[in-house]
């Protein structure tokens, strides 16, 4: 049984930030939805409410950076780059302000539909000079995200999980590294965020089918250790498959493709994720199935890559967790 951790960010942020006078907690009317309501109540002198006004908040944070502070901005990821993109560029990224952008509800982890789902943020952030990109895939990574982000001399984009989060790893994020979760030699699977748990669900079924999988989990998307990836690619027979909670253009799939092309790595690559489409509202498990981001989609991708059919069905995969929409650990609202 997988350990589930309730609201890991709430505890981690408070433990990290409380009492450090240079760290400020900024919020745009989603304080409890981003699990920093307790911090606000217990450390009001380190908390700044900026209202539902994200454009101002981004440039304001840039100004705080100029004054020597390290602001942690909390809102849903989608509201932190779509409307205030210009402010993010001019006030934060270009001058390399030490602003930590804590983006909640990445990709299809929200039922809020198109306006709430950040499905192209990694693509956007990857193309911004000076930006560092981190993504959490389990509770341990959420618990270490503040420290990891704050170790960077410049702005950092973080995809943060909230609510009830599984514990998959026992070591914190080490910026710039990647996790090698299995070391097979048939196929390289590269995942990030919530898709790593999906790939792990398929692990035993794929092993029973006789496949030897090498599985990498990426918590650091930029900067990226290209040589480490190429070494892994060199040690598998068939090819590479990526699975991400994001569009396949510009995200982890593109990152792997670019790395392979740059090095002339002549192996096949299959990129799974949102295929040049918007998503809609619904539960996370439903959306992951509908748009092909789950364990079964990965199995089908591997069948495509190897040209073999394994006859693996949903029943052969490890059980999926189903979140209770109204569970008490779920943060307030959308």
């Amino acid at each position, binding site marked *: 049984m997988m350990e589930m951790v309730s609201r890991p960010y709430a505890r981690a942020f408070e433990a990290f930030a409380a009492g450090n006078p240079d760290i400020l907690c900024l*919020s745009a009317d989603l304080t409890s939805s981003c699990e920093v309501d307790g911090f606000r109540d217990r450390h009001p002198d380190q908390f700044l409410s900026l209202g539902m006004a994200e454009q101002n908040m981004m440039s304001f944070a840039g100004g705080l950076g100029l004054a020597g502070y390290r602001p942690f901005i909390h809102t849903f990821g989608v509201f932190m780059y779509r409307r205030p993109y210009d402010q993010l560029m001019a006030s934060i990224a270009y001058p390399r302000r030490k602003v930590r952008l804590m983006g909640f509800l990445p990709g299809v982890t929200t039922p809020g*539909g198109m306006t709430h789902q950040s499905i192209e943020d990694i693509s956007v952030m990857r193309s911004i000079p000076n930006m560092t990109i981190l993504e959490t895939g389990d509770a341990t990574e959420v618990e270490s995200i503040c420290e990891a982000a704050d170790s960077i001399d410049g702005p950092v984009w973080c995809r943060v999980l909230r609510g009830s989060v599984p514990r998959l790893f026992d070591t914190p994020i080490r910026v710039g590294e990647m996790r090698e979760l299995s070391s097979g030699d048939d196929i390289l699977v590269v995942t990030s965020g919530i898709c790593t748990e999906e790939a792990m669900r398929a692990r035993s079924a794929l092993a029973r089918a006789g496949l030897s999988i090498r599985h990498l989990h990426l918590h650091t998307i930029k900067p990226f250790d290209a040589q480490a990836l190429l070494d892994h690619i060199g040690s598998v027979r068939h090819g590479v498959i990526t699975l991400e909670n994001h569009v396949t253009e510009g995200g982890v799939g593109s990152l792997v493709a670019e790395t392979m092309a740059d090095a002339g790595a002549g192996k096949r690559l299959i990129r799974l994720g949102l295929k040049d489409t918007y998503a809609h509202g619904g539960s996370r498990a439903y959306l992951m199935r509908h748009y092909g981001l789950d364990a079964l989609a990965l199995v089908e991708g591997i069948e495509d890559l190897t040209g073999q059919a394994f006859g693996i069905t949903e029943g052969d995969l490890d059980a999926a967790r189903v979140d209770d929409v109204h569970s008490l650990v779920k943060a307030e609202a*959308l």
Partner: protein
Amino acid sequence: MRNERTTEEVALGIRRRVFEHSMRNNGGYLSQACSAGEQLAWLYNEELKLGAPTLPMIPKPFEGVPSPSNPDYHTGAGYNGPAAPEFDRLFIAPAHYALVAYATLIEVGRMAPEGLEMFNKDGSSVEMIGAEHSPGMEVHNGTLGIGLSTGAGLAWGRKRRGEPGRTWVFMSDGEVQEGQTWEAVQAAAFHGIDNLYAIMDVNDQQCDGAMSSVMEVGDIKTKFRTFGAVCVEIDGHDVQAMRDAVAEPHEGRPLIILARTSPYRTMPILEERFPRLHYVRFKSEDERARMNVSIAADLGVEPVDYSH
């Protein structure tokens, strides 16, 4: 299909439906029914000039997002009737008011009650945050602050084409914190867009609680006037005040009605949770049971049997 019932009766019906839904689901956007019940009831029951619905009473399932490979894509605007020149158009700018808007469609006979049972169900078009394919919606507004601008553009375009129909935007007060709202008013005044109408639910609350504790917005009536709108402030639970407000002359300017409301109107027990009413999730079975009995009595219905 208009005026068979009074607007007050429609407002009560909306609140009963949202109450029942929230009880069954252990939570929901319940306070928005308290604050906005009369406004949406008034718009649909009296004020809007709309044709008969063009979409099925029982909503179709989700049929895909807009894309070149989805040629039959359409929005949920057909629940408001056809987009003919003589008819009005309505946007629900704060898309989290969708539950209240769907309840309104049912109360005025534009959607079947089954529609609400599809709310937030996987594969349904009746989404929690109203999407443009959801019943009664024509554009996506879940990112707050964009509705009035879209309304201004549509109104300007319709005016240029000589269409007599008006464009209405239902807004929330949280939206005044977004700079875009003010850019919209500025543009509407500059371009003389007087076929643009907005009614705003000024319930003084947002996600984090009381607006004054999150980001003070000051005297918004004066601000709207200074930006070039004609702005009338009313008691948002007084239907006659709405009828009077819309008669306000506003040639060459948009008309904005500020409806001052209470987020626990008709459900006084919700005051216990004030000012954290943006999304009511019952904190315990005891609270759920107490609120069930109390609100049911206030609304003149039996308590909801949510055990199965």
